[in-house]
């Protein structure tokens, strides 16, 4: 209804907007901000030629606090990352150990193996954040999926698993660094 007789005061008109804006901004500032947690890539990329079967990393591995060996991820948890992908039946090319991606929840490092034709053939996780139970749970579920998706896509263009977006950012950043350093 239009009440012409009583004009609301300026304060009454402005107050709700100011109050709600303050509450809104306060709320937003309390939210997670993965954007500010930049994924920093540290260390250099090490390539191992196939003749030497052992994998060496030029990076000194961080103190092993992990209860589960990182490689177990691919062996025990991944349903099918080891299944051969067409055109990449043998991973007989270079094995490349990527830089350590340092992000919000810890460090993530990948090793990628290629075929002789330099097609991405297999990805294993060298290390991942495992200090918190939650990190362990999320990563053990998501990383095998990322491994498989990366091999299937042959690139770092993979979809994020819900709830594991931060790991996805670190993973894709790390894998992209490997792929950039090892052009097909």
């Amino acid at each position, binding site marked *: *209804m239009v009440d012409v007789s009583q004009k609301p005061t300026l304060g009454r008109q402005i107050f709700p907007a100011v109050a709600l*804006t303050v509450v*809104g901004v306060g709320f*937003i500032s309390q*939210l997670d901000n993965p954007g500010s947690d930049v994924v920093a890539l540290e260390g250099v990329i090490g390539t191992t030629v196939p003749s030497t079967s052992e994998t060496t990393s030029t990076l000194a591995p961080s103190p092993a606090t992990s209860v589960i060996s990182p490689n177990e991820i691919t062996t025990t948890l991944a349903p099918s990352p080891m299944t051969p992908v067409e055109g990449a039946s043998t991973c007989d090319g270079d094995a490349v150990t990527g830089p350590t991606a340092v992000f919000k929840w810890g460090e993530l490092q990948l090793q990628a193996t290629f075929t002789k034709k330099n097609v991405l053939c297999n990805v294993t996780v060298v290390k991942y954040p495992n200090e918190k139970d939650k990190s362990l749970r999320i990563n053990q579920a998501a990383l095998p999926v990322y491994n498989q998706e990366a091999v299937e896509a042959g690139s770092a263009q993979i979809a994020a698993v819900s709830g594991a977006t931060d790991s996805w950012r670190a993973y894709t950043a790390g894998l992209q660094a490997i792929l950039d350093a090892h052009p097909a």
Partner: protein
Amino acid sequence: MSRPTPTSSESQVHPLPAPRESWVLDTDVGAVIGALTLVVVGLWSRHGGVTALGDSAAKTYTSLAQLTGLLCSEAGLLGLILVTRTPLVERRYGLDRMFNWHRLLGEAMAIFLALHIAFSIAAWAIPNGAVNAIKSLTGKEPYMALTAVGSVVILIVTLSSLKWFRNKLSYEMWYFVHLTAYFGLAASFSHQIVLGTDFADDALARSFWVALHLALVAWLTWSRWGRFLVSITRPLRVSAVTHEAEGISSVVLSGTHLQKAKAQGGQFYVVRQLVKGRWWQANPFSLSAQPTTAGLRFTVKARGESSNAFTNIALGTRVIVEGPYGVCTPDVVNSEKVLLIGGGIGIGPITSFLEQLAPKHEPIILYRVSSEQEMSHVKELETLATARNGKVHTLVGHRATLKVADPFSADVLLKAVPDLAQRVVIVAGPESMVKAVQRGARAAGVPVENIHAERAWW
């Protein structure tokens, strides 16, 4: 002509008091919409939505899918607030404007939904191809089968509300299709929480989003459906039916529940008769006499199957009413003089409005009607006007037979009402007539804020 008259059991008849005013201001509405938009866009931006835009195609599409999805939800939430018919908003803006905004928000929601679907498919298609993306988004991913069904329902509801389809459907058919929107919205909620990274990854954002939706569900349940159930427990009865003109009757509803009711002339109710096969037909009827504890009078024209049933309704029929709604009441007038313009059945709300005016308003009534057989309440109008220092002009005949092309042009209006610019103009009638009056009155120098229109109900 039938006026509500006291029955033997009711010793004294009072006019109903005016419903309480809303304290909500335009700026409050703006603040709520602005703050919700701020939170939604801020949440998206805080979660990296803006930085992702310049990134790879996949990230850009994902980010856009998130933004359009959030905005789609926001439009849906705001649209549902309007459906609550909350008096906070209704008492200030009126139900017809709320429905209009609801329709606009529905259209905005459909556009955001289409964009959200397109961006999501584009984002998922980059690693997996479009076919796999569509497969994932319609079933493989958790809750996406449910969401896909919900989206289809929402799109059907939106399409059915477009004028072209809407005109081909009966009101009831359209209404029941429309009700399925509740299912559509509920079905698509799950994927926001499980798949939408804005909520899956951030507990605080998720709690806020869930709380917001639960609060709205509670509000809607009470304000819309709770009130509806209450109205069922307080039925009125038809106490008089009078033939007024060709196809036009006035119906008086009475009952003890009116002792505590509040309403004003110019307002309308949504009326249903509790008769087998008709209870679900909702009719918006305007009050055609000042509402009193003795009864509510509506003047009804037979122009559809459902309103036909009201023009010869049996005495004693139980009727439930929701309302009153509408803000075009005598409250919009202070001490100015008043010009009332009623077209066709729009004379009903004009009559109830006039009854609440005082001699200082010197009301002039313009009654536009297409034939003499359809004129109703003429004597009553003249009696009311005379007692209030006013007068009635009638303009009868089809448009083609009139001497002037536009009976509501500034020239014609000024000839009939020389002091028009000093008056508050109230108009009720068909939409085309309301628009013509608004044009003419503004051209004659009436400020926009002094022109008040209520949609012509029955």
